[in-house]
């Protein structure tokens, strides 16, 4: 969090850094400072020279690409094992999936990606982007020649446009097919909710299909196998703020705000006092750090917050 504490970069700190005495926060401060202005870099180079020929002055910058090669070669056998473990663990599911996949795909390595405790953000082989909240998982063929993904739980997808190969997310009875767009899919035992952030998607079940455009969404009832369309109001986009970090509140109750912030940043938030249910707030956050969001909310409602063992407690007198 950038605004947590400001460390000013002085000669004392630079000396500390060169001497190998800087703590992690101080090292970050030095690096930010180095990137801020070319003059800073110059000053640093001079100080490093002064520090002595025996240390940083003769320091050779590493060859990052070569280091990456070294790293990825070391990791690849492990990655293979992981992949196979994932394959073994999901064997039962795979049998079912093979029935759904087009026949004749011989190259069959499947990549399985699960969000366990944290929100996962990842780039797929085609450069599409996926974000999943904890408890969700996707599975896709490693070759990715056909862009087919199986989803469990919830996922937000930003799809790279490609006219040759449709991008398909499969979940339950539904297939969601896109050509280039961003959308969120949320599944529960009762229903599947698809919300489109931009572009358009085609959602189809075995019996019917529906096209959704930006700002629209649908709820698929798993038991009755029917669709309901809904238009996603501005605050409906909060549902996938865990991916976009865009939160919009319009006279929203503090309990709802806490629920949304908690999902977006994957933290636990507790309101200490029931009177706070009367607090309402209207504001927008675009990709702000959690500390900023909490500062703004508590300051505008005249409340306080503190963090204890990873739980954020909001306290105060309530609002009128």
């Amino acid at each position, binding site marked *: 969090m950038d605004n947590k504490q400001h460390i000013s970069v002085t*000669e*004392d700190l630079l*000396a500390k850094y060169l001497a*190998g005495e800087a703590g992690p926060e101080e*090292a970050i401060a030095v*690096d930010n400072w180095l990137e801020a202005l070319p003059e800073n870099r110059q000053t640093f180079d001079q100080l490093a020279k002064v520090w002595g020929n025996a240390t940083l002055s003769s320091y050779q910058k*590493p060859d*990052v690409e070569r*280091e990456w090669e070294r790293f990825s070669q070391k990791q690849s056998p*492990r990655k293979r094992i992981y992949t196979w473990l994932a394959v073994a663990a999901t064997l039962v599911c795979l049998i079912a999936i093979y029935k759904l996949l087009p026949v004749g795909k011989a190259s069959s390595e499947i990549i399985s990606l699960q969000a366990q405790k944290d929100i996962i953000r990842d780039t797929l082989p085609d450069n599409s982007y996926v974000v999943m909240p904890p408890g969700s998982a996707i599975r896709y063929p490693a070759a990715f020649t056909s862009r087919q993904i199986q989803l469990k739980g919830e996922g937000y997808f930003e799809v790279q446009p490609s006219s040759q190969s449709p991008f398909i997310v499969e979940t339950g009875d539904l297939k969601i097919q896109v050509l280039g767009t961003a959308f969120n899919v949320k599944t529960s035992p009762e229903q599947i909710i698809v919300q489109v952030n931009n572009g358009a998607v085609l959602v189809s079940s075995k019996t019917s299909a529906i096209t959704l455009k930006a700002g629209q969404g649908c709820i698929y009832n798993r038991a009755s196998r029917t669709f309901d369309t809904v238009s996603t109001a501005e605050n409906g986009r909060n549902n996938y703020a865990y991916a976009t970090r865009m939160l919009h509140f319009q006279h929203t109750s503090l309990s709802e705000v806490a629920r949304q912030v908690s999902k977006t940043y994957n933290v636990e938030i507790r309101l200490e006092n029931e009177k706070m249910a009367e607090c309402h707030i209207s504001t927008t956050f675009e990709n702000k750090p959690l500390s900023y969001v909490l500062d703004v909310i508590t300051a505008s409602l005249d409340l306080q917050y503190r963090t204890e063992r990873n739980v954020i407690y909001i306290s105060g007198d309530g609002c009128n």
Partner: protein
Amino acid sequence: MTHAFRQLFITHYEKLHRYAFTLLKNEAAASDAVQSVFTRLWEKQGTIILDEGIKSYLYRSIHNHCLNIIRQGNNKEKYTLYQAHNIQKNTFSGEPEEQMVARELQTRIREAMESLPAQCKVVFLKSREDGKKYTEIATELNISIKTVEAQMGKALKILREKLQEYLVIFIILLY
């Protein structure tokens, strides 16, 4: 996973390496440290968020990892070897011109160091030449760590000012 991970690696590698180097005083050891930290992160995939929080996680990991290596003690020896090697490298390698400039700079730094205020000079030498920790220096000289920090900053500042013109030329020549 590799796309996002590669990006993270490329973005942070150099900075983390430089930081590890300040702690370990050895390039190879610094590379190993950064590699291990990324390896551990790789193994934790799926339980770690790849966002801005990752930065302080990485620096913290490097710091802890390097301190552990130093605590295990096998670094002291390496450090000394490395220093000897470097002095040799600096004195006897490179183009004749560079060699000359490097030797010249060494002489100038020595001269400038002589002119430092007494305590400043003692603190600076203990840190730079003997590779002593701030806490060790503070205990030895019976002063506070804050004073050590301030004296070190002051020493560097004075030296840089005294050598200013010369450093500018030197850096232009070598870069």
